[in-house]
């Protein structure tokens, strides 16, 4: 009954958020299994320190409640844009250098890459629906992949997947906050409309 009282924009916004949350959850699940597969195929240890790897968006950046809805969504969108590029690089490195014959593994990375692209698109839509501007596109990291050693490629791939997993968690949380906030504002808006 409550949803029936929502405006179409709010409903669409809510649906979009729900779909984005679902997709983020799905990405998280897929990335978790991909991480297992990645570590095994690269002969890596999950405990290896990845602090030296930079150029990957960090999900654990300190953020407070002071962030606005637009900033929150914009940060997410920028991160997934970056992950699109990073995952593409990881996929290419695996194809060209590390696991040239493992097509199934490549398909798994490709699948996550597509989902990340879809999530980024949904976030774009959400921002547009909420009337926020699209954040500026930030170029990829400073490192030249041509000079990266194979070990650095492996670490970088691991870092990308780990951070992507973290980002999906953060995105779910951010999207829930956005949903919660929009409900409140929707209710307030409806109240104002009734007064008018």
């Amino acid at each position, binding site marked *: 009954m409550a949803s029936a009282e929502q405006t179409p924009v709010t409903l669409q916004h809510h649906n979009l958020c729900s779909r984005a949350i679902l997709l983020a959850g799905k990405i998280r699940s897929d990335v978790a299994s991909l991480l297992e597969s990645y570590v095994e*195929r690269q002969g890596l240890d999950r405990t290896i320190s990845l602090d030296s790897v930079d150029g990957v968006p960090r999900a654990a950046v300190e953020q407070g409640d002071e962030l606005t809805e637009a900033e929150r969504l914009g940060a997410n969108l920028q991160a997934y844009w970056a992950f699109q590029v990073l995952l593409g690089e990881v996929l290419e490195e695996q194809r060209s*250098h*590390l*696991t040239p*014959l493992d097509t199934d593994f490549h398909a798994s990375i490709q699948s996550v890459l597509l989902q990340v692209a879809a999530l980024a698109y949904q976030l774009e839509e959400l921002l547009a629906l909420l009337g926020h501007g699209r954040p500026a596109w930030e170029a990829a990291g400073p490192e030249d992949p041509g000079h990266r*050693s*194979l*070990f650095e490629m492996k*670490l970088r791939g691991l870092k990308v997947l780990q951070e992507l997993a973290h980002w999906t968690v953060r995105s779910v949380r951010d999207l829930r906050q956005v949903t919660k906030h929009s409900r409140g504002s929707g209710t307030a808006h409806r109240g104002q409309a009734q007064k008018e």
Partner: protein
Amino acid sequence: MWDNPSLRCVLAIAFLHLLSLIYSQETGFPEAPLYLKCITHDLNRMICSWDATSSANLGLTYKICYTNSEPFLPVCIKTEEKRADIPVTMGSTNIEITTLNASGTPLATETFVLPEENVSLIPLTPQILNLNADFSTYTLYLKWNDSGSVFQHELDASWQIQILRKETMETVTLMNYDSKLTGKDSILSWNWTSDIPLECTSHHVKIRCYINDPYFSGRKEWSEWSPIKTVPGKDTKISNAVVFPQDKVVLVGSDVAFCCLYNEGESIKYMKYGSESYSLLHLSKWSSAIKVQNVSASISSGTNVWCSVLPDNVAGTVLFVGYAPDTPQNLTCETRTFITITCSWNSGRPTRLYRQRQTKYILFERISRENVTCKVDELNKSHHCDFPVHANQKIYSFTLEATNPLGRAESSLLIDVNQRAHLETPDKFTVSTNSSTNAHLSWYIPGNFIQIRLLCQIEISNTNSERQLQNVSMAGAENANYRARVDALHSYATYTFRVRCSASEHFWRWSKWSEGKKLTTLEAPPARGPDIWREKSPVGETLTVFWKPLLLSEANGIIRSHEVSCYPRETVLEVPVPLNSTEIKFGGNDCLISVVAKNRAGSSPPSRITSVNLPSDNVKTELAIATGNGIYISWHSDPNVTCGYTLKWCISSGSEPCSVDWEMFPSNATDALIKSALFQPGVRYNFSLYGCKHNGYQLLQNITGYMKELPPKVAPNFTVEETSSDSILVKWEDIPVEDCQGFLKGYILSFAKGEKGTSKTSFVEEGFPELTVKTITDPTKKSLRILDLQGKTSYRLDLQAYTIGGKGPSKDLYVVTKENSVGLIIAILIPVAVAVVLGVVTSILCYQKREWIKETFYPDIPNPENSKALQFQKNICEGNTALKTLEMNPCTPNSVEVVETRSTVLKIEDTEIISPVADSELLEDGSDPETGSHVVVSYCPPIIEEEISSPARDEPVGSSQIIYIDIQSMYQPQVNPEEEPEINFVTSAGYKPQMQLPINAMKMESHSPTEEDLDKTAGYRPQANTNVWKLDSPDSPTSIQSNNENGSFGSPCSINSRQFLIPPKDYEDSPTPNNTGWSFTHFFQNKPND
């Protein structure tokens, strides 16, 4: 030479002697030169130096004069130093050194004789010209000048190169390098490969020299070490921790060292190869290494090596471990189009290296000096590479080189391209025909085959899967269609064609088969006329003409109809298929029958047969022989048969009329094996053999036979015609022919004793021990007499027929032989005679012992009629009022009160009265008499008065009571268990009635038993007429046996006396048997017929 110790000893002694000579000229002045020492670097000049006792050197100069040997004059030079450069001379040199003061006054002079042996050859210190490092291969390249121009002639030189590492300058290796000095300066080079990456730490190199002049007898010593040259490592000034070597490829089984370089302020925590930590080797302040031995093949992404650097850093590298390329195997080169040559090979052992590290193949052709780089799919083991065919080049010498970071391998092949033609699969294959016997084929092969001839193979398969190959040779062309024609095909036959080709002159390989194409040739007229036969009707008015359908190969198409004519009659019958016979009415006039088969293409040649049947007499019927798959028939040759024999038969199936079939044989044939798919085992077939004579056909013989004989299907029906006490005549019927399933060979009759219903199985199954089998080998015999049987015995007879195929089922019959009358008579007479004799003897004995018997069994009993108190009537139940004692006066029942009763005896209270005897017995048994029942019964008090005086009055019976004695109760206790089987007799023998019942019984029975029997059977005799009881005493209790003859037991009629009243002897023969109650007499009366 110097190894000889004795020689060394001699030389040492000589050296000491020379020294003594040198110093023998010392003057003893302090300024005098001492200890002259000479060395040479180039064997041309030597530098001699000396010492002086005086350490002061104020203004002193030295004049050195040396002479080599006579006749040279001495050469003098002046010097202020204690050394002089003088030429090296052969042999010894006399050197005179004079010490001069500042004014030139000689102070002291010393003369030295310097032999060559005392001159030392010490080469000049070598200088490293260049030291380069190849970090990828861990190799140091060293260059230096050998300074060969110093020496005037060739000399052997040895070089010692020392590699040092670490901060402590530990010697890593010390290598010797030999060279020849040619009299000119030469740049020598040497390289060394490190076991650890050169980046790990700095490497230092120094070198020294040794000249070995065989003609110089002086001492030869190593030169001084050259100044050290250093290849600095990368363990200083690094921006971030790093592991060396980076992304290296090594062979499986190699020993590999890795080093981790880190910054100042950092320390290494551990270093891992794969997942395993290795012990660290300290190389420098900021460099540590591990050494991994015998590495195994890595996964496709390589094996990780990394170091964890404190406080929080990580660095790593990836090692790829694999194999050098294997020699390409099975290298073959062939051309399919003469445009390119395709070489294919097998890569052999996988290298385990991929992409940038995978094996690369280069195909090099030596004659044209061209090479091509081959693109290979690393997922496949077999690879191929194309090389262009050059005009005017037939011979190609290929070398296939395989290289990867770990090595190279190659294979070579020399071919003549014309002998390596492996054509492409023929394409656009078409088949056509416009004839009934040939076909045209066309196909296309891509490629330029102008230089060669082609050999193509055409496969022709018919519908019967028969395969035929036909080779066609043709000139090659460029990208052309090729054609061929195939002849000798069957008309109206369907074929499948395929084609493949190769080079004709130098066969190498066939191409693949083209796709198959089907073709059906056109129809042609039937090749021959059908096989025909004819039969006249019994009346002779009609003639039935039969023909056999042609084989497909003979029909040359689809037979549409058969045309039948009967010459000279004009009538022509057109019989459509599938009919294979027709009837012609020919009116008794014979004719020549002609049959023609017709298809779309035309008509067959006619088949002809005459209708004339020649008369035949005395035609015999012979039996054919079954072969299992056919019927073998033979006949006698008839010289009059000129145009062959015809064997005709008819096979019927079910209710349809039989289908006529026949076979024709030449005139010289005398036998035939007839086979037909329609023949069935066990079915009789009749054949007729006709001989073809010049004027007609004559029936020569009838034959009957089976394809395969089987056992008869049924058993013959048989009956027993006669039976006597020792023989049986058995007769049986013929088995119907259709049930015989073969020619009957006889019968088997089996018999044994057996009762009907005892067994249903056959004799053989049961294994009868007394089984007798009679085999009748004459199938025409229809009866058999079985002899030597036992009289009045049941026999079981089994009869079965048999053929060559086996025995048929059996049918059984039970018969009982008649009784033997003589034996029967004997069997009856003997027991009768014995019984009579025994009876007579018994009678005699009984007569002689009659007194004893009487005394024993029938003692005299007082006649109650003689007692006044007992003036009985003879039958108390006849209502004779004169009999007072037992008179049944109408009695007025008195009440008898039952004082106490037991529930257990309630059952008998209506039927049984407790008798005093029973009471007494109970007392004797210890039972309580007081518990006895006091039953109120009706009684007749007047009668009691007479009874009181009886001997039983001492019994405890109250005077007012009358005791009814239950006869059953009275006698039951007297029965012993041992006598139980005779209980009826004992019971009946216990009481002896007061009437002459035994006498009555004797009189009533016509064949009465003996007296003993009578005694046994003469039981209780009630003194009343039981009939009267039944009629007159409706109140009397009815026994459960009331319907039998002993129904009087339990009668309410009382008897005063409990003693047996034995009649007196005088009455024994009394002829007044009034009572016929339950005695034997009565028993026999119920069986009047007996």
